[in-house]
């Protein structure tokens, strides 16, 4: 696999640092690597990516709803490649550690996870809600797959049905 020399090197370095914690590592193509890591090792991983591997930019965090698990992809970039680290958390009690200790700019992304997916971010400093409106019903997380508009606004959806 001489084609993916750089990517294989990243794989080796990650394995040396985290051992068996890194699972499902795939090299999709040149400069594109995916893997999974247990949620509690995220801050440690971010620190290693930033200082050890030179992937010093957290481009974004994207949440996902995988049925039994909720979770997030942490997309890290340098000037050439993108590495996406996935962390899962059980749907019954979803929580992830904050990575704002390493990347302070992750704060809005983590607030989005809290608001839109209902994933509790441990260690995120208190602040006003984002990005949902201030008067949005509490405990409603619109980007979960089983969420419907009727959950949050029953009377509004009823009036729309009458009109149709």
């Amino acid at each position: 696999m001489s084609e993916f020399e750089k990517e294989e090197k990243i794989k080796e370095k990650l394995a040396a640092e985290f051992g068996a914690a890194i699972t499902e590592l795939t090299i999709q193509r040149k400069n594109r690597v995916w893997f999974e890591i247990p949620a509690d090792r995220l801050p440690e991983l971010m620190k290693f990516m930033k200082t050890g591997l030179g992937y010093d930019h957290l481009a974004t965090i994207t949440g996902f709803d995988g049925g039994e698990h909720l979770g997030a992809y942490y997309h890290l970039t340098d000037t050439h490649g993108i590495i996406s680290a996935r962390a899962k958390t059980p749907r019954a009690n979803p929580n992830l550690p904050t990575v704002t200790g390493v990347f302070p700019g992750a704060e809005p992304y983590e607030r989005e996870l809290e608001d839109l997916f209902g994933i509790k971010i441990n260690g995120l400093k208190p602040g006003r809600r984002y990005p949902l409106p201030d008067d949005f019903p509490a405990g409603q997380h619109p980007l979960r797959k089983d969420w419907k508009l009727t959950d949050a606004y029953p009377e509004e959806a009823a009036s729309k049905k009458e009109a149709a």
Partner: protein
Amino acid sequence: MKIKDKLILWSRLKSPWLLHFNTGACNGCDIEIVDALTPRYDLERFGAILKSTPRHADVLVVSGPVTRQQVKRLKRIYDQMPEPKFVMAVGTCACSGGVFDGCYGVVSGVDAVIPVSIYIPGCPVRPEAVLDGAVKLLGALEASSKGK
């Protein structure tokens, strides 16, 4: 019609002052509204002028679907305008919510929150459509006062 009323109607028809409010538009319609005010299309030839306060405005020009965060603000601005007041819903989103209808952050079109006088569809609206809408609004206003 008394001479005083005639004078008021005349001044109303010849100087519809606008207040532009974006309730969550992508800025496409906002650009077209500004376009309609430029010398090329020249909405100002009808006496329209863009004001920066609702207290001076006769026509509220609303673009975009109404987001939940903006509902309170839109109502408040509408309440601050002096009577008689008119609302122009500019663009498909303002008319009906458009593609954003049913989204968790969006209520619907402008008419879900305040009464709308004229709907101008388009995505984004053409400046000609804005002109046409403004002229029709003034025409309707004139016609409705004829019988008195």
